[in-house]
């Protein structure tokens, strides 16, 4: 009992000390925030001289405060936020200050740390501040064992080099999570440039997740010339890749695409079948009517509904197919057809 009471007292005392220190820290933070705002303002509006290398003027108080680790880290955090928000001279000035205060060395130290969260933080800081001189160190981490380090390194390389940075897709053998794919797509959507020609190679990558990501890239960047390579992905053993290939074909379709999808349909699982019917609703025509009508006999009601929707969307001929279908008046087809028609009206 004495042990638990002692521990209890210890925790309460620790909590009290923590609360007091936090209160002090919050007060100090408020003071520092004003100081930080002044530094950032001066940096952002600084006009660099034309003939000499720029030096951002700093007050004596700032220089004194910069000796404190916590203040330096706060400054880095605020500079990163500002760097994301500004472009042009203001962004260049922030990078200048980053160098001037040797903050890149701090970030590099973090990058070289053995702790994953510090490593990831270092990568993030160096990439946002466009420190390309550390590319080799960051690139090596694009296939790192720790997922977060790997993700940050991949994002950093894309941030530094745009589409060219995607070259890490050639070497990674660890999977790209869906979250990471979304993140990379978002980074690339803000980057000027075009998808490199080697995207075709990624479509045949031994890493399934790279293939899925490449299919998303091809769809987003409308790479119609890769139609054949995408079609080849319909034979991939993994249904996730096939599903993405179907979605991609919907976005880069040619006149042949509906026939390709119809051909691939019979051997697919339900999820892929559904994706094909949804794709045909977008890209199909009267010529797919017979195929779609056949799907109304499938035992799975979800597929029946998707086929009915596709027929309704393809136009009058599709509606005619539905109305003339022998079982159109029987349950559940009568309700399915009615819903498909109502959705189109709404």
């Amino acid at each position, binding site marked *: *009992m004495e042990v*638990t*009471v002692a*521990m*209890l007292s210890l*925790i*309460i005392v*620790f*909590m009290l000390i*923590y*609360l007091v220190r936090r209160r002090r820290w919050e007060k100090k933070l408020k003071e520092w925030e004003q100081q930080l705002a002044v530094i950032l303002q001066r940096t952002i509006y600084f006009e660099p001289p034309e003939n000499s290398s720029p030096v951002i003027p700093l007050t004596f108080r700032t220089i004194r405060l910069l000796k404190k680790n916590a203040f330096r880290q706060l400054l880095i955090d605020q500079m990163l936020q500002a760097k994301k928000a500004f472009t042009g001279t203001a962004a260049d000035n922030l990078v200048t200050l980053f160098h001037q205060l040797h903050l890149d060395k701090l970030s590099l130290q973090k990058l070289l740390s053995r702790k994953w*969260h510090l490593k*990831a*933080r270092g990568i*993030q800081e160096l990439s946002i501040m466009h420190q390309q001189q550390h590319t080799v160190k960051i690139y090596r981490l694009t296939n790192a064992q720790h*997922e*977060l380090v790997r*993700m*940050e390194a991949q994002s950093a390389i894309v941030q530094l080099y745009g589409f060219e940075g995607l070259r890490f897709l050639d070497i990674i053998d*660890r*999977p*790209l*999570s*869906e*979250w990471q*794919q*979304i*993140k990379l*797509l*978002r980074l690339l959507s803000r980057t000027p440039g075009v998808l490199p020609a080697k995207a075709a190679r990624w479509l045949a990558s031994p890493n399934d*997740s790279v293939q899925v990501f490449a299919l*998303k890239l091809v769809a987003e960047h409308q790479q119609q010339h890769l139609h054949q390579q995408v079609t080849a992905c319909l034979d991939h053993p993994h249904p996730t890749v096939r599903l993405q290939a179907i979605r991609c074909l919907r976005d880069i379709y040619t006149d042949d695409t509906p026939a390709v999808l119809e051909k691939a349909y019979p051997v697919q699982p339900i999820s892929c079948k559904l994706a094909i019917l949804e794709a045909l609703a977008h890209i199909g025509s009267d010529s797919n009517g017979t195929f779609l009508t056949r799907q109304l006999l499938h035992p799975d*009601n*979800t597929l029946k*509904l998707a086929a009915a929707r596709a027929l309704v969307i393809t136009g009058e001929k599709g509606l005619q197919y539905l109305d003339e279908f022998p079982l159109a008046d029987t349950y*559940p087809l009568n*309700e*399915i057809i*009615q*819903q498909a*028609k*109502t959705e189109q009206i*709404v």
Partner: protein
Amino acid sequence: MSGPAIFSFFFNYGLWLYSVTLLTSHLLIALLAVVEVRRYRRSASFTDYTILTSSPQAPGMSILAPAYNEGATIVENVRSLLSIHYRNLEVIVINDGSKDDCLSKLISAYQLRKMDFFVTQSISTKEIRGIYKSSLPVFHKLTVVDKVNGGKADALNVGINVASKEYIVCIDVDCIIEQDALLKMAKPFLDSTDKRVIASGGVVRIANSCEIRNGRLVKVHLPDSFLPRAQTLEYIRAFLLGRMAWSRINALLLISGAFGAFDKEIVIACGGYNHATVGEDMELVVRMRRYMEEKKIPYKVTYIPDPLCWTEAPASYKILGRQRNRWTRGTIETLSMHRKMCFNPRYRILGMLSYPYWLLFELMAPLVEFTGLIGMLIAAALGYINWPMFLALLGFILSFGILYSIFAILMEVLTYNQYNKSTDILRLTLTAILEPFIFHPFVVWSAIRGNIDLLRKKNSWGEMSRQGFAGKKNIAHAKT
């Protein structure tokens, strides 16, 4: 040895062994929770959740909100759900045969009209009377289903049948969901590369005394009255320590019915919610896990320590007693339905650790405690008690319980710090000291009554009267 002596030996040493195991497991839970919460928070600091708000690749989520006699607050509650930040979202409100004006209020507030809608009966349910969509494009995410009363599980199953997205988020319609809750909830499903995430839970917090405006929580306060405050402490302990620890070792058995996201395909494959239990939330998670184990598909059930959902806790002993009674019956029913898993190595950590823990330390703890009390009274009457030893042990157990609660408060202070006034922390600490003497005995007694009710085959949900965030009285799901 004589009969009473043998009894005394087993009673004393049995209780001792039980207590040591329980206390050790609490220490391990605290340790694992620290590791997991730290990992999560470090990882979350790199995450920009807003990338999902604009991405066409964001997975589809269907919020399922069953409503029974929620007429007083339904319009506001639905408005709050529609304002959640998520792109690929549909909100399905299931009116479970309400006897009040719940449906008519929804029809008039959102200009709903009845639609031709074919529902695939993936899970068998009671009859659907109609499906309504809004004629206003601004409410295009909303679907209202009117059905014959069948209870919460049946209402959720209807929602699952109607849902068109890949993931379903089951909530209590009277809960307040944080605006970014779905962005955070979607991440675990997108993060995993080696295992399929079948379910994910979020922390539920107590909203009593908090400031709520237009269906949104604007300021957090610690509840003024003791009972909700004790539950606040209990929820911090359960969510920040318990669930995070179990989540760390992928052994979580329960995701709160108030807020949980599930992989729809797996839910349907498992047959959806079970009507035969009042603990349908726990039963579904156990069944989904069992299904994945039996199919030998690698899977994960995750938990997020961020406070994502706020609920009103019972403020009276009567209502609290009914709630705990129902939770006990739900746990017994679930464990009984899946007894095959108990110490069955085929179910790995689920059978060898999660199930036995729930059986021994969640389900049996109140029984052991109650039996211990009776035994102690008998022993005292017969003069068998070594009082100095007894008092020392009692003091140890009580101080350990308080220590665990204070540690949970410390975790809260170090992490989310929702109650940031020093007086709030002091009041929570005092609650932790008082809880073993006032709140805990009542919870134990309610659990005993739950056991008795189950033996008497009483299977009602019990009426859950709430004050409502706007101060109005309303009656929540009360189907028998």
